[in-house]
């Protein structure tokens, strides 16, 4: 055979890919969207909006007590102070992890997620195993993420089934007293703001 390399040229599209293409074609044909608008939405969430936004919110809350109280009181407005607002962040709530309480966020019905602060959700967040298990066995899920908490830590699972979107304010790790707000933002991980991770000192 002249054509003896191993990558498939005409691999059939998956059901999801076909469905997306069909939806896109219909929306374009009916002139409900234009192709440049789709490209811009994709580019915006690929390059401009992501978990670094949420990390800035967390770092500011860790270093500015007044900001932290505003954030816990009215998260939507406090987050907007830093310029993060819009689609899927219209009505925000921030829940704080402490020595005694650990919060975890899920959307059991689909994949609701705070886009302006965290970007688009990771695949596991949208997948049935996480959504089904975390409301029933959160410690088991945390274990899968490599997080072990003391037995006496209260666990609060937040199901964002309606219109509120949730961001976890993780615990500031010990040994970070000398770090600046910018340095702190660098150590805040996406998972720590969902509640499936903890922040560690560098």
């Amino acid at each position, binding site marked *: 055979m002249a054509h003896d390399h191993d990558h498939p040229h005409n691999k059939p599209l998956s059901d999801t890919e076909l469905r997306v293409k069909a939806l896109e074609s219909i929306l374009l044909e009916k*002139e*409900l*969207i*234009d192709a*440049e*608008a789709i*490209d*811009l*939405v994709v580019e*915006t969430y690929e390059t401009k*909006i992501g978990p670094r936004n949420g990390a800035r919110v967390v770092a500011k809350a860790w270093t500015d007590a007044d900001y932290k109280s505003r954030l816990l009181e009215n998260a939507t407005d406090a987050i907007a102070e830093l310029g993060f*607002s*819009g*689609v*899927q*962040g*219209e*009505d925000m*709530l921030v829940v704080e992890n402490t020595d005694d309480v650990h919060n975890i966020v899920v959307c*059991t*019905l689909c994949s609701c997620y705070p886009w302006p602060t965290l970007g688009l959700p990771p695949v596991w967040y949208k997948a049935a195993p996480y959504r089904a298990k975390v*409301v*029933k066995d*959160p410690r088991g899920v945390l274990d899968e993420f490599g997080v072990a908490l003391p*037995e*006496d*830590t*209260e*666990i*609060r*699972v*937040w*199901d*964002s*089934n*309606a*219109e*509120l979107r949730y961001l976890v304010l993780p615990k500031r790790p010990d040994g970070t007293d000398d770090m600046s707000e910018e340095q702190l933002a660098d150590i805040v991980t996406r998972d720590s703001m969902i509640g499936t991770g903890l922040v560690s000192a560098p």
Partner: protein
Amino acid sequence: MPTLTKEIVPGLVATGASCRIDEDVAPNFGIGDAVEIRNINPVTHTRLPRYVRGKKGTVERDHGVFAFPDTSAHGKGETPQHVYSVKFSFQELWGEDYADNMFLYIDMFDDYMRASS
């Protein structure tokens, strides 16, 4: 319906579209109220997951007035009503052998709940 063009995208992304409704609707419940989630089984769109149906919880926070997706998703009007953060123990949801320091918080519309004794 207007076409979604490139020019509209940045404004749309930045402002979004809250389902919050600026209307003075009386809440059916207050903070601290004991509630029971109605055991209803809608065959159309709902934000009421099966695992809390028939379960008893406590109203922890009133989020304000929002459009009700169970009707608005079907063009049957916004049916504005209060949404609350309702707290359930894992023991209530999953059984008495669960630890007593595990809780589930979920956002419930007025129409999903009744007062519990």
